[in-house]
């Protein structure tokens, strides 16, 4: 789906902006009829596929989880501030609950004691969900490569790795925009394809009686 933007006073731009405004006013009043109404509607309808429309809206409204691990979290916080202002792309709503978030930014080093906690948080997030591994520590353990740490690829799927120690806010914003590209366009680059996990999505069952597929039953907390 393509959004085309034109300057009104640029050469070649529609010059009848005022007449369109009047036309829209007429339509809202209910004054347009027959041929004119037909033409008005046809001018304003855009066709696309459902998948593309959904992917477009998903990619432009990622809600990251409010979750910081270490020094990278400081850089992560600054992407919502005035200089980077990630709200330009629709990612500014940091949610405090994994149930409302669909992006997990691992910002910092992950200790072996923290890894089960993160895995649990990731499992609590609802599909569709994505994860960004930010900084050297949680991708390759960086300068803290010792007995206490574990790289994040070992316990959860990661969609985008952002290198750096720590990455600048621009780098993280670039990583998020790469993730947006992945969500909107190149769907086969997702982690399910890379990890042979196609078909493990949690979906609502269509038969009567089945609540959901690939969802743990009541009382079974092994996966959560």
């Amino acid at each position, binding site marked *: 789906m393509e959004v085309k933007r034109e300057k009104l006073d640029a050469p070649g731009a529609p010059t009848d902006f005022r007449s369109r405004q009047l036309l829209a006013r007429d339509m809202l009043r209910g004054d347009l009829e027959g041929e004119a109404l037909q033409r008005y509607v046809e001018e304003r309808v855009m066709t696309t596929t459902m998948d593309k429309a959904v992917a477009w809206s998903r990619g432009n409204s990622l809600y990251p989880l409010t979750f910081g691990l270490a020094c990278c979290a400081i850089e992560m916080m600054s992407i919502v501030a005035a200089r980077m202002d990630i709200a330009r792309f629709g990612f500014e709503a940091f949610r405090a609950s994994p149930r409302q978030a669909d992006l997990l930014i691992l910002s910092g080093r992950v200790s072996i004691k923290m890894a089960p906690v993160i895995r649990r948080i990731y499992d609590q997030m609802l599909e569709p969900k994505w994860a960004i591994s930010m900084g050297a520590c949680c991708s390759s*353990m960086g300068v803290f490569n*010792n007995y206490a740490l574990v*790289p994040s*690829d070992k316990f959860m*799927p990661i969609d985008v790795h952002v290198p750096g120690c720590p990455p600048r806010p621009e780098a993280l914003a670039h990583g998020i925009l790469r993730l947006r590209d992945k969500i909107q366009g190149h769907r086969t680059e997702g982690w399910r394809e890379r990890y042979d996990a196609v078909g493990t999505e949690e979906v609502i069952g269509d038969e009567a009686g089945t609540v959901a597929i690939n969802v743990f039953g009541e009382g079974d907390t092994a996966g959560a």
Partner: protein
Amino acid sequence: MRPEPSRSTCSAKETPPVPDATELELTAQELRDANAESVLDTDFHRGRATLIANPEHVLVVLGALRSKGYTFLASLHGCDYYPHEPRLGILYELLDMRRVDRITVKARVHTDTPRIASTVELFPGAEFPEREVYDMFGVVFDGHPDLRRILMPEDYEGFPQRRDFPIGGEPVLFTYNDETSYGKWQ
């Protein structure tokens, strides 16, 4: 109460180390008079006074120092002196708040029998530092009310700050070893 040294200028250079080497020896002798085996040695290095205490009588030493005025346990930490024996050291940094005197008590234990009495009764604030020394060096503090790991996971094996513990670190998954490295997700 001894006369106050001229510390009105608040300059670190002019402040003499307290206790100085003589006073350290006097303190050690005082402790030895009470219990001949309590103090093994003294060390005065770069203005820092250290009593090498017998680990079996460390409570006696600390108790005597506490009643002498060293009422504040500023730090309790461990150290591994590999390859010197006994390998493990437990260091108590004591502070006299009224005279601003600092003294270090060091007790060395073997890795075969890493046991020492807990000082929680004397200094309640030693509870968490002792858990940390147990976590990192494996020193068992007898009489500690709740001796568990404090930083590492409770099912962790080994004591990572010992010198013979491997630095370790998980092998990192890169594209080139994606298939061969163990622990790949799924």
